[in-house]
C-alpha cells in the first residue's frame, strides 16, 4: 500500500504535466465540443447561433459521413492486421538475428523514418501509368489510382510499408520480456517451435501486442496524409479525417467541422476501448492482482 504522504508527493510531482496536458489537450477538446454546438461559418461570423445537437444530427444522417466511416475501416482493418503479422515476423528476425543485428534493425526502420507525405508520393509515382515502374510488371499494368479498389490497395500497401517497422519495434520490446528460462523449460518439456510460439511467447507478449494494436489502430483510424496525397478522397476512399478537413478548412464551417472532429474523437476512443476490453486479462494491472 502507498503512504498518503507519498501519494501527495506523487500528485505534486505530476502536477506540471497535468497542467500542461490540460492546456494543450483538454482545452482544445472542450473548445471543439463547444464550437460543435453552434452554427458558425467563418465567412459569416455575424450569423453565429447556438443550435444544440443539430450539427451532430446533420452528420449522423449524412451518407457522406457513413461512407467515410466505411472507407476508414476498409483502410484500417487490413492494414493493421497485415502489419501485426509482418511486424511479428520482423520482430522475431530482429530478436534472433545473430549477425548484423544492428544493420537489420536499421534497415527495417528506414520506411518508418520517411515522412508520410514523401512515402505517399513515392507510392503514387510508383503506381502512376506514366512515371511508375509497377506498370512494367506485366499483369499489374492498370491505372491503379483511378479505380476504387485498386486505389484502396495502394493506400493500404503504403500504410503497411510505412508503419510495419513501428509495429515490429513495439513487438520486439514484448519479445524481450519473455524470460529465457521459461522458453528453455518449454523446450525441455518437448514443446515444438510452434507450440513454444503460440503457447508460451504469445501469451507472455499479450501486453505488448495490446499496446502495438492500440497505437496502430488509433493511428490508422485518423489516417489523413496518405489519402490526401494519393486520391484526395476521390473514388470513395475518403476517410473521416478528410471529411473533417474539408468541412473545417475548405467549407470554413467551424460548427459542423468541430462536430465531425468530436465524432472522430468518439470513434477513436470507442475503438481503443474495444481493444482494451477485448484483450482484458492481458492488462498489466490485472496480472498483478
Amino acid at each position: 500500500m502507498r503512504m498518503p504522504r507519498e501519494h501527495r508527493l506523487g500528485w505534486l510531482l505530476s502536477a506540471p504535466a497535468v497542467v500542461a496536458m490540460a492546456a494543450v489537450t483538454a482545452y482544445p477538446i472542450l473548445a471543439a465540443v463547444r464550437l460543435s454546438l453552434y452554427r458558425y461559418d467563418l465567412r459569416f461570423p455575424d450569423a453565429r447561433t447556438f443550435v444544440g445537437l443539430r450539427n451532430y444530427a446533420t452528420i449522423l444522417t449524412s451518407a457522406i459521413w457513413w461512407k467515410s466511416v466505411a472507407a476508414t475501416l476498409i483502410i484500417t482493418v487490413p492494414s493493421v492486421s497485415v502489419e501485426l503479422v509482418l511486424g511479428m515476423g520482423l520482430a522475431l528476425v530482429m530478436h534472433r538475428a545473430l549477425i548484423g543485428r544492428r544493420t537489420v534493425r536499421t534497415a527495417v526502420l528506414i520506411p518508418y523514418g520517411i515522412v508520410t507525405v514523401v512515402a505517399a508520393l513515392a507510392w503514387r509515382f510508383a503506381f502512376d501509368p506514366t512515371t511508375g515502374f509497377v506498370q512494367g510488371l506485366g499483369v499489374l499494368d492498370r491505372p491503379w489510382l483511378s479505380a476504387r479498389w485498386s486505389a484502396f490497395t495502394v493506400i493500404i500497401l503504403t500504410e503497411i510499408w510505412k508503419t510495419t517497422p513501428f509495429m515490429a519495434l513495439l513487438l520486439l520490446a514484448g519479445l524481450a520480456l519473455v524470460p529465457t528460462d521459461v522458453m528453455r523449460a518449454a523446450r525441455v518439456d518437448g514443446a515444438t517451435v510452434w507450440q513454444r510460439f503460440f503457447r508460451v511467447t504469445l501469451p507472455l507478449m499479450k501486453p505488448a501486442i495490446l499496446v502495438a494494436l492500440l497505437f496502430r489502430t488509433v493511428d490508422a483510424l485518423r489516417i489523413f496524409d496518405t489519402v490526401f496525397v494519393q486520391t484526395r478522397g476521390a473514388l470513395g476512399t475518403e476517410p473521416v479525417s478528410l471529411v473533417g478537413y474539408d468541412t473545417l478548412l475548405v467549407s470554413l464551417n467551424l460548427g459542423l467541422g468541430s462536430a465531425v472532429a468530436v465524432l472522430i474523437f468518439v470513434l477513436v476512443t470507442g475503438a481503443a476501448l474495444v481493444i482494451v476490453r477485448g484483450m482484458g486479462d492481458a492488462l498489466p494491472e490485472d496480472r498483478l492482482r
Partner: protein
Amino acid sequence: MPAPSGCRAAHILRRACVAGVVFVSACSGGVASGPPVLRWYVFDEPSGAFATAARRCGEESGGRYSIEMTPLPTAADQQRSQLVRRLAARDADIDLVGMDVIWVPEFAAAGWILPWQGDDAREAVRGRLPSAAATVRFRNRVWAAPLTTNTQLLWYRTDRVDRVPTTWDDLIRTAESLGDSGTIEVQGARYEGLTVFFTSLLASAGGRVLAPGDTTVALPPPATERALGILKRLATSTAADPTLSTSREDQGRLAFEAGKASFMVNYTYVWPSARTDAPEVARHMAWARWPSVEAGRPSRVTVGGIDVGVGAFTRHPRLAFRAALCLASVKSQRTAVTMGGLPPTTEALYDDPDVRSVFPFADLLRQTLREAVQRARTPLYTDVSLAMMRVLHPPSEIDSVADVARLRSAVQRALDSRGLR
C-alpha cells in the same frame, strides 16, 4: 551512453534562443523607417512576372511605397485556405490579395477585401474584356482589378486529323476512329477542374448552374442532362484517357507532350510549354475553339484568372489601392503575358504585336473570352463546387438522367449551407 539529458536540453534551449533572437531581429527589420512595404499575397508565379511587376510598381511610386510578394502555394485550394485563415483572423499584414476569380464574392461578402470607389473603381475595369470585368463585380460594386484572365481552347495534332471536330459528339467519334492514339485529354479528377469542365459543357448546352442573381439553382433539366450525357459518353469511350478520373490540367499536358493524345482541352500555357518541352509535338500542334455541344451554337467556356484586391485590414488602404491599380495595369499585364504566358484582361492588348507573338491564337482566345461564362457568383462558391464534383465524380459512373436531380439537390443544399459536402 548518450550525454546527460539535462545538458542536452540546455543545449537545445540555447540553440532555440539563438534562433528566436535571429527571428525577432529579422522581423523587426521590416518595421524600420522609410516608405511602407505593401505585402502582396499571391500564388508563386514561376516565371517571376508578378515579382517583376511588383518591383516596377514600387520604383514608379516615387518612393511612396514598395511591394513585397508573399508567395502562396501552387494549388489553388491551398492558396485559398491559407488566405482565409489569415483574413478571418483580421491579419493586417495582407495589404494586397491576388485572388482566383471565384473567391471574389466570398471575400467581399465576408468583409475581407475593401470595395473600390469612384475613379479607382472605373479605372480598375477600364478597357477590360467584359468577362474579366465581370469577375471583380459583386453586389453592384467593384472589389478588385483584373490582372490576368484565362480560358481553354481545343488543342489537336495536325498530323493525325485533317479536319477539326467542332462538336463534342464529332470529337469523340473522330478520336475513337483513330484507335490507340486517339485519346482526348480532359480534366476528370475530383477537383475544381472537373467543375470547370462541366460548367463549360453546361453553358455550351445553353444551361447554367445558378439562376440570374446567383441565389437559386438553375440547372435546367434538358441542358443539364445533355452536359452530363457528354461527360458520361466521353468517360466511357475508348477515346478517354484510362486515368481520366485522376487527370488534372498538367497530366493532360504531359500526355499530349508525350505524343499519347491527339486532342486536349486545356489552358493557353500548354502552347509555350510544348514549344520548349516537346518541339516535335509542337510542330504538329494546332488550336481551335472549344467544341460546342449543339452544332451551330458556339461553345461557352469558363473564364479564370487573377484579380488584385485590397485586404480589409491593411494599415495603408490608400496606397494599397494605388498599388493594386499599378499591379493590374497594362504594363504589368504585358509583363505577365510576355514572361509568364498569362492572358491579359485589357482587350486592346490582344492586338499588341508582343502579345500576338506569344499567343499566335490571340484572336481565337479573345473571341472565346468575349463569349465566356462565369462560374456561380456566390459567396458559397466553394461549397457549390464541392457539392457538384461529388456528384460528377467519377465521370464514368454518371447516370445522365438520375444525376440531374442529384446535382440539383446537392447544389441547393450547398446554397442553404446544409449538411456535409
